[in-house]
């Protein structure tokens, strides 16, 4: 009885295909030859891609988003790893409290979080600088980084650590040679997942940009409001491609099972 009725199956497939539909619409519209947004396009052209690549504003936004995503992913993965390693190995008693604190941002509506972030960053005088965006992204991504790493570390048999130490490994060596490789897929999940989140974050980020710096999604957002040039479709398609590649990479190097595991809390 591992089968669905054909009607249910068709319904499921129809709804599933509905999910990427708007993305395909954007994709199609990006090849439009005319001067305004239109789907289906009347004529085909790559002119909007040419414009996207020649307008320095877009290139800058893409690069900013990419390097911020990379910095955030590496930092938050390292931060979560250290915290999870310390609590699991040395202080399992505080593990519950730490998780409570780390997961609490999840219960904050993003709009409130954005205002809170801008209040804090303004008092630190960093609004409009990469620091504000990076710090805010660290707060947003910490739960998504901590969970895969915590799950991976928790499954490491303590005797493996002891075995390495009996053989003469220092704590650092055991960490590097044994624990890190075993937790590889959890760490990679954290890196790619938080990278994607940072790359695509807009609700909190849009409060923190300034004349000097803006990220790709925030710039798309601003342009949608200002004018609806089809160059947006081309740029959006590029952003989808970047996210898509990251997801494929995630599937390759770590698998997707993390996303459908039930929390064991």
């Amino acid at each position, binding site marked *: 009885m591992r089968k669905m009725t054909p009607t249910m199956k068709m319904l499921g497939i129809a709804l599933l295909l509905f999910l990427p539909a708007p993305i395909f619409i954007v994709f199609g519209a990006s090849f439009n030859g005319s001067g305004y947004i239109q789907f289906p396009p009347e004529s085909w052209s790559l002119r909007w891609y040419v414009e996207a690549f020649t307008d320095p504003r877009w290139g800058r936004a893409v690069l900013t988003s990419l390097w911020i995503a990379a910095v955030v992913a590496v930092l938050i993965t390292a931060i979560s790893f250290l915290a999870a390693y310390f609590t699991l190995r040395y202080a399992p008693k505080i593990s519950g409290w730490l998780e409570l604190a780390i997961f609490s941002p999840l219960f904050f509506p993003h709009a409130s979080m954005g205002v809170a972030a801008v209040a804090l960053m303004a008092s630190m005088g960093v609004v409009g600088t990469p620091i504000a965006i990076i710090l805010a992204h660290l707060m947003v991504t910490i739960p998504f980084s901590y969970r895969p790493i915590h799950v991976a570390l928790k499954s490491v*048999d303590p005797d493996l650590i*002891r*075995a390495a*130490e009996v*053989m003469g*490994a220092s704590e650092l060596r055991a960490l590097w040679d044994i624990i890190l490789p075993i937790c590889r897929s959890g760490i990679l999940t954290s890196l790619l997942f938080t990278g994607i989140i940072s790359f695509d974050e807009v609700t909190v980020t849009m409060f923190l940009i300034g004349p000097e710096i803006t990220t790709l999604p925030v710039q798309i957002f601003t342009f949608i409001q200002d004018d609806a040039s089809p160059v947006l479709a081309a740029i959006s398609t590029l952003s989808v491609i970047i996210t898509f590649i990251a997801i494929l990479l995630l599937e390759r190097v770590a698998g997707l099972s993390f996303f459908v595991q039930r929390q064991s809390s």
Partner: protein
Amino acid sequence: MNDKMTPPTRDAAVGSIHIENVSKSYGDAEVLSSVSLDIPAGSFLTLLGPSGCGKTTLLRLIAGFISPTRGTIRIDGRDMTQVPTQKRPIGMVFQNLALFPHFSVSENIAYGLKLRKTDAAEMQRRVSKFIQLVGLDGLGDRRIAQLSGGQKQRVALARSLVLEPSILLLDEPLSALDLQLRKQLQFALKDIQKQLRTTFVFVTHDQEEATMISDRIVVMSNGHVQQVGTPQDIYSDPQNLFVSKFIGEVNELPGKVLSVGQNLAVETGAGSFELPTSVARRLDPVAGDKVTICLRPEKIAIADPAAPVAPGMVSADARVVDTLVIGPLTRVTLEAQGTRMTSVQMTDALGPLPSGASVRIAFAADAARVFAPLTADLATAFGDQA
């Protein structure tokens, strides 16, 4: 090559462990109470006891994973209190083996050598030597997941031995294997230990394994050492009822001391027996004490009820319940006034024993052992096992 790490021939004096008054508590719970123990270099010593007796705790203290609440542990005369695990001259085989899943067989074995920055050629030589020693020729490139249980076992052993530690700690490493493989590996372990003359400290709850494999056995229970001795000492001269029951099979006859004089008179369900006082030398009983007489099954002879009782023998009337021939030996289940007993005899030496036949059982008076009954906390150990 580092000469300090690999002495050309093992010095018999290296690898001794002296444990002095070591206690370990977790909060209010004392899992090890004032244990003192000398483990001579080059011996194969087994820590034997039921689960929760403290044997694994003692092993982990020697390894340095935990530190004693009180007392000191010396290895070759050197106090280990401040010495971290990494610096102790020990190797360890874990109960779950703790093989590195992301390394191949050779990588697992080479790991400790790599940490010691052994040069490539020497590493290669030693890894293959130990792969051969444990009988894993040709499997060096296998992944751990591709090995059978027995092969994993051998990798764990080789991985520890390749570093030539003066002491190897083994924490119930055979408990997950099936019987036949177990037997095979027990012999292999004993053989390897003889070849290398490394001190082996082996933990098990299986008394048969302990008696087969070791030079010396430490019987433990409830955080205390009950007895230390060779397998033979422990079998034939147990110091208390716990040890007697834990090692081998024993007939227990609970009873009461009637009188103490030249002889010790004890009344049991199977009859009253006059025994020399020497059988209770660890007890010093007085009349009225509750005691238990212990008799190994092979000490109980079965004779015709009409046959005369030889001098120095004690006898009682019994009835045959059942006989079971196990090759050269036969187990006879008997009943003496409602008390069940087992006798094990050479099959050849026994005549026909139909069920229900009346017989006379006899045993040498000095073959019996008389002990005080088990204290409640020790008795639970057998409850757990059943």
